[in-house]
């Protein structure tokens, strides 16, 4: 399994840190900014995940569907 397993911890870490930032910003009364921060972090993590999903689709294509 030569895949970047560290990315799992990275995603979990981003999730926890963003939750913390969200709470702090909420306490400060800046709820809009808190929501934007969450959304931005979600998009960043989504980008990471989508890259891997693309990789999966390429692999499936080359293994099962005989296309390169």
């Amino acid at each position, binding site marked *: *399994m030569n895949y970047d397993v560290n990315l*799992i911890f990275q995603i979990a870490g981003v999730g926890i840190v963003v939750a913390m930032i969200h709470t702090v910003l909420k306490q400060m009364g800046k709820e809009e900014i808190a929501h934007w921060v969450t959304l931005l972090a979600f998009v960043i993590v989504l980008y990471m995940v989508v890259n891997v999903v693309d990789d999966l689709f390429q692999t499936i294509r080359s293994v*099962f569907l*005989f296309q390169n």
Partner: protein
Amino acid sequence: MVHIEILQIVGLGLVATFLALIVKEHNPSFAFLLTVFVGVIIFIFLAEQIANIVAMLEELAESAQINMVYMETILKIIGIAYIAEFGAQIAKDAGQGAIASKIELGGKVIIMVMAIPIITAIIETVIGLLPN
């Protein structure tokens, strides 16, 4: 060294489960992305293993002189079944049972369409066997 790899998969799954459990409390969407990520990694890993099996099957089919079109169709159907199952599970995990059912339906329909040449060949053979 294939037997070691099951330990890797189980370890990865357990670690991801714990992390998702923790993250889910604060941020469910990130837990979902984590699940998708781990699922994809395991799937890619397994696809590399399945490539070995596919190569072996192709060799067998070639030595048995089976028409490669049928072989390819069957392998494609297997691939469609796997990927549709994967997508449906992910959608179901996110609480979208309806979308999951549609993905499964799509998989079934496309498998049916891909099997048309094989079914046609079978029917033609049967009709040819029938006496006039």
